[in-house]
């Protein structure tokens, strides 16, 4: 008698969805909130898993992927969004498709005061640079929102950030 397989986590479902949409470049600065996606990309022989030294490298990387006809995603923390701002000139000016999934800090139940300035400014600065922000607060919303973002980015050519809030991913204990 075989055991029932555990249902896939929403993070695993998001990874599968990205792969179904031919996302082949996964760029990130290591982050606990994106651990499943990062680990899946490292274990997947059909994608490039690209660890960055700073998030703005990922913005440029994904523009290069697009020039070559490939699709990518940037996985980052809200603090990393601040590191991307001028590089988003490339996305906005060049009309590049751009998809980022952002694990929020400085948000719902955050205990580290250092995370608040950038966490609270994340949506405002991204929107100022032309990135559409979609928030997800439950596992169901996360999957639906990433699905919507994939259409908005790779079909309609937009720049979209999916904000994975701390209601969804939980607040780190301090």
């Amino acid at each position: 008698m075989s055991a029932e397989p555990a249902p896939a986590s929403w993070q695993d479902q998001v990874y599968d969805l990205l792969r179904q949409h031919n996302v082949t470049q996964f760029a990130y600065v290591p982050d606990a909130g994106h651990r499943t996606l990062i680990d899946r990309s490292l274990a997947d022989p059909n994608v490039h898993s690209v660890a960055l030294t700073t998030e703005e490298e990922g913005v440029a990387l994904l523009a290069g992927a697009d020039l070559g006809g490939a699709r990518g995603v940037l996985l980052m923390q809200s603090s990393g969004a601040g590191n991307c701002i001028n590089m988003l000139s490339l996305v906005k000016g060049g009309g590049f498709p751009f998809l980022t999934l952002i694990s929020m800090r400085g948000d719902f139940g955050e205990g580290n005061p250092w995370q608040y300035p950038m966490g609270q400014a994340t949506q405002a600065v991204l929107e100022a640079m032309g990135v559409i922000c979609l928030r997800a607060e439950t596992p169901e919303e996360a999957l639906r929102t990433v699905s919507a973002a994939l259409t908005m980015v790779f079909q309609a050519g937009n720049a979209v950030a999916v904000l994975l809030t701390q209601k969804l991913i939980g607040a780190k204990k301090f």
Partner: protein
Amino acid sequence: MATQTKAVAEAMAPAFVLDRLEAVPALIGRHEDFLFVAGLAGTSRDVAAITNDGAHTYSMAGAMGGAAMIGLGLALARPDKRVLVVTGDGELLMNIGALATIAVLNPPNLSIVCVDNGHYGETGYQKSHTSLGVDLEKIAAGSGIKRTLTIEGEAELAEGARLIREGNGTAFVLLRVKPTEPPAFKRDLNPANCRLRFRTGLLA
């Protein structure tokens, strides 16, 4: 004829003797061998003059610090093509961590040429760190890029031309040049036009 500012003449070090108007075309050779990503200012004009601002060139006039990583994304997306990033010392210094990221991936179809004039030419020829002791070839090698070369004279150009075409891992070539003006070439500055031009040329 290239012009040279007074500050530049004072700053000129013995290693910075090649003229970019001759050295960059001599190093690159047959431009049809590559897809190009060109950094800001001088190098975008170097490459535009060589390729006649061709569809196989994506050159920048902003988003400083992005050239090497655009090259990485393109090289990973198109392992069947050779990608050549041509950028300046100032542009590369702005995101020097990119060399570490690239070294870890080490795509065999990517080469980086840094045209190092030791100055920020676009903003009035202020000295860059490379005029003050910073060695970008050593940083590239220290990042883990295995095939690196510094070119300071005509004798090394042929080896550089070979290195940027070989497929044994990412290559980095530091081309030291005099701080003189780049080609006076008027290229398309619209980043969206250049994206569409590039994708149409490569993917159509």
